[in-house]
């Protein structure tokens, strides 16, 4: 079976020939280790910042080569910045992204990470000009990747969830302060960010991509980051609009979040097609989620990202087998780590995941 077909069948919660495998993302150092070459580009999982189209193509080619070499089934790409945009550079080496986040470079991961914000007062937001979703270029990497891989692998575009986006744009303390002081304001921001996503998802649908993966956490180790009624009143209705747009474009929609998602599982099952990462360090047991929601939700996960950094190859093989045993029967399971292949992960452990799924992941599952 072709890799793309394997993923598409899985997204329909049916059993393909074998359990598909992918990673939501790989940090540059781990891709460099896989390819054996240096990629002189810094990226960000949270926001599009590679403005030079030549570098954007190079980065996409590098990732495609990497996913091919490791033998993954589903390629993930980020949004690209709109044409002509350049990040504002601060004297201290930080940069400002399209949404007013101040990013600092994590040199080890070669990744720009949200660190601060240009919004000091709530009023600052009123004067801030949001990026235009109709500006050309957001789907540049997606279009380029689709042209390059054709039907070889399935293709997912990674977008940023409006709640997580707002949480980062304002930074957690300001987000929370303003949420309690002026819940309508935060609701309005999340709606505006959702409007943006809906339009961009429409454009992604025209590229031939198969899947949207929406990044950004809803939960932390103990549970949801904000009260559940805020999720139900504000976050999930806006999430549903994005999912509906993905469906109109012939795509499925998987929501990523780390943390303890158990209190929100019912809401997720009513809203999205699938969940990543099913965080095993936060009381999420993938077998239990499978038993309860396996007919409604595609599960993408959940070999512990911490274990990839700290455990032995043999332990990762066992963990991957356990994951397959619990989540794969019946289809609807894409094997991946519980976040992404981070710079600190041991490459031999990452590759052990792939070898294990190829060896033990053939349907019907018999381990």
């Amino acid at each position, binding site marked *: 079976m072709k890799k793309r077909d394997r993923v598409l069948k899985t997204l329909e919660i049916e059993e393909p020939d074998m359990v598909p495998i992918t990673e939501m993302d790989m940090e540059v150092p781990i891709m460099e280790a896989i390819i054996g070459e240096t990629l002189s580009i810094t990226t960000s999982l949270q926001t599009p910042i590679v403005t030079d189209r030549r570098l954007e193509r190079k980065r996409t080619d590098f990732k495609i080569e990497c996913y091919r070499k490791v033998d993954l089934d589903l390629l993930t790409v980020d949004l690209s910045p709109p044409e002509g945009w350049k990040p504002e550079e601060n004297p201290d080496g930080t940069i400002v992204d399209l949404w007013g986040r101040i990013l*600092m470079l*994590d*040199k*080890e*991961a070669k990744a720009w*990470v949200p*660190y601060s914000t240009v919004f000091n007062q709530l009023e600052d937001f009123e004067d801030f000009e949001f990026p235009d979703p109709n500006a050309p270029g957001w789907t540049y990497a997606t279009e380029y990747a689709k042209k390059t891989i054709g039907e070889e692998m399935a293709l997912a575009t990674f977008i940023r969830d409006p709640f997580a986006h707002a949480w980062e744009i304002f930074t*957690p*303390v300001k987000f*929370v*302060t303003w*949420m*309690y*002081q002026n819940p309508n304001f935060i609701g309005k921001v999340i709606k505006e960010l959702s409007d943006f996503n809906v339009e961009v998802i429409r454009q992604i649908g025209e590229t031939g991509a198969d899947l949207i993966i929406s990044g950004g956490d809803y939960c*932390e*180790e*103990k*549970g*949801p*980051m*904000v*009260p*559940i009624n*805020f999720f139900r009143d504000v976050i999930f209705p806006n999430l549903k609009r994005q999912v509906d747009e993905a469906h109109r474009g012939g795509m499925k929609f998987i929501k990523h979040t780390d943390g303890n998602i158990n209190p929100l599982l019912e809401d997720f099952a009513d809203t999205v097609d699938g969940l990543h990462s099913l965080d095993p*360090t936060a009381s999420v047991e993938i077998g239990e989620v499978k038993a309860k929601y396996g007919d409604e939700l595609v599960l993408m996960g959940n070999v512990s*990202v*911490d274990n*990839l*950094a*700290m455990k032995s190859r043999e332990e990762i093989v066992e963990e991957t087998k356990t994951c397959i045993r619990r989540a794969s029967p019946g289809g609807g399971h894409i094997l991946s780590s519980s976040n992404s292949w*981070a*710079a*600190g*992960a041991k490459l031999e452990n990452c590759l052990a995941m792939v070898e294990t799924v190829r060896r033990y992941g053939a349907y019907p599952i018999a381990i």
Partner: protein
Amino acid sequence: MGELRDFQTLIIQISDIEEVKRTARKILETDANPVDVLEVLNEAMREVGNRYERGEYFLSELIMAGVLASEVTEILKPSLAKTDLESQGKIVVGTVKGDIHDIGKNILIMMLSAAGFEVVDLGVDVSAEKFVEAIDKEEADVLGISALLSSTMENLRGVIETIRREGLRDQIKIIVGGRPLTKEFADEIGADSYAKDALEGVRVVKELIEAAEV
């Protein structure tokens, strides 16, 4: 006392920030002892922390309680300066080199401040040399170092080794924390203690300081 209890309830219920500030000022105007107000604030924060641990409160409520506590602490500061209240201790905190995550660290700072500790925040991406410099300069009781990423937790070992090499290890208690860390890792790298989150961090800092005073 009823006024103080009402004030405590305002904090626990995560009331409007302006109402909390107004009430704090009003209590001080009635010649209430600011030390009593601080103690009530501390109790309120403990209750919020307990509710969070029991899953009754969410992270946003824990953060907002911290914001309220910071505001009240600012209001109390001038009055507290006139009392003979001693600081509970001085803590220097920072996120290790290569790591710029700080939610947990910032919650810890708010909660320690509300509990009467003096806190010096070194920020994120802090080098071993900067931690050493701060130990020298601040004469703190405890150093708190956090790391969120499995790729940066090893840098904690380097910080503690540098502190030891500089001959400062006996001058300070060290607590480490952050998502990928474990007690075993903390023991292995030679930290005095470990906390899995900010709430445990406050408890552990108190224990370290109390143990040092014995």
